[in-house]
């Protein structure tokens, strides 16, 4: 390949990425603008709260429980190398609340909710249900996107809070049952070490990750191609984009919150 052709290919790729970022940004702004403008679809919002939040609790809880337990084992084993086994409660707490809680919940939501939203909306698109919505004087952005994005924005921070608590409990259970920690001391150390801003940052991350997860599901669903292959591509693309954007947003938010 000649240098000119290589440059042209590189240019096309960069332009394509920039166009994609532009489309997603415009879609996000459009969704946000519709959140504050009537009509509002309460039933769809309630249904989204249930599917994004309540029905995600088992997977979030189990993920957090096992992660908290594994974290306690790792910190104990690692800390033993320089006689710092006692820091298990503090590190489990800070690790779960600041990082692992929000990130793991975000990724679980991307796997469970983003894929489901993308597949559902993409199927609606290929079976002309989106066109039918329009002919029935219903804006797809208001009826499909806004309830899901708003529900995720509200309910994912709650899931993160639940995940943080269960994760800390997982560490507590392992530490007190197998590593010989005193239960009361473990809980006191955890409570003393955590600061209010650790929890606030965790919830803010949860809101951001929830927004990204729901938005990617809706965006890729709405842009789905034809047929089963189109639905499959939309679903795969939505999960990939949501996972990458969640990890990127986590890096940015961690930098903003804790780099000073």
């Amino acid at each position, binding site marked *: 390949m000649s240098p000119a052709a290589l440059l042209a290919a590189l240019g096309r790729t960069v332009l394509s990425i920039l166009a994609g970022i532009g489309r997603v940004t415009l879609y996000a702004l459009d969704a946000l603008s519709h959140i504050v403008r009537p009509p509002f679809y309460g039933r769809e919002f309630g249904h989204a709260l249930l599917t994004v939040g309540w029905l995600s609790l088992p997977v979030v809880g189990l993920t957090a429980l096992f992660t908290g337990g594994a974290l306690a084992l790792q910190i104990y084993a690692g800390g033993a190398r320089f006689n710092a086994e006692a820091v298990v409660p503090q590190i489990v707490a800070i690790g779960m609340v600041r990082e692992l809680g929000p990130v793991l919940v975000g990724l679980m939501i991307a796997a469970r909710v983003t894929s489901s939203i993308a597949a559902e909306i993409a199927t609606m698109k290929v079976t002309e249900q989106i066109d039918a919505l329009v002919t*029935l*004087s*219903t804006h797809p952005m208001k009826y499909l996107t806004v309830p899901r994005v708003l529900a995720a924005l509200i309910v994912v921070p709650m899931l993160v809070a639940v995940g943080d608590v269960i994760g800390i409990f997982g560490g507590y259970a392992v530490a007190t049952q197998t590593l010989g920690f005193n239960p009361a001391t473990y809980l006191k150390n955890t409570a003393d070490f955590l600061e209010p801003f650790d929890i606030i940052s965790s919830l803010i991350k949860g809101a951001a990750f929830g927004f990204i997860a729901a938005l990617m599901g809706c965006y890729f669903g709405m842009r789905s191609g034809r047929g089963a292959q189109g639905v499959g591509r939309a679903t795969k693309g939505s999960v990939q984009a949501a996972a990458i954007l969640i990890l990127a947003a986590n890096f940015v938010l961690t930098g903003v919150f804790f780099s000073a």
Partner: protein
Amino acid sequence: MIALTQVKKSFDTNHVLRGVDLRVETGTSTVIIGGSGTGKSVLLKCILGLVTPDAGTITLDDQDVLRADRDTFLARFGMLFQGAALFDSLKVWENVAFRLLRGSLKRPKAEAREIAIEKLRRVGLKPDVADKFPAELSGGMQKRVGLARAIAAEPEIIFFDEPTTGLDPIMAGVINELIREIVTEMGATAMTITHDMSSVRAIADRVAMLHDGVIQWEGPVAQLDTSDDPYVSQFIHGRADGPIEAVR
């Protein structure tokens, strides 16, 4: 009256509509015929604003459809989609009463349900279907539910996209009769796209043939069989030889 003047639409290099001129008079039933992939559905979607034409004008009662208030404009329309396009997550009656449960035509829930059941009865479905989900119904029943949804808000204009595709001949005949009865009874303007000639004869007052992106022939249904247009003749007789290229 719906009037299309030199409507053009392309998708990349595929020039689907190359300058469509068509008049649909108020209260008449016009059927657009043409082979698969000739742009019949695109034409309907252009009128509804689901697809934006590249050129040309589409007016409804002398008002440009692209400049009309969307809600007011769409409130005048009902549409039966090819695959019925029922919402899987809603019960049958909620599908039929969709427009009556939200927006400017919103009614109390009990009243909307009553209207939905009445419309279901009108298309030959029993009230016990109302609480089922679309996935529990056969293809023919789904088409009937789609038809009930299209007429639920008693629109002035109804579009039918391939109303009999995928149905057995008896069910197709039933749907054709229902469409004709409902259109006559409501005094609605109807526009149907199909390549099913039995539908054409049962539903149409006037017929327009879309081929190669333009209206190739247009006239009353009574003149269809006697037309000397070679495209129409080949199409209605289903001949492989003629000006319309048949891919084998």
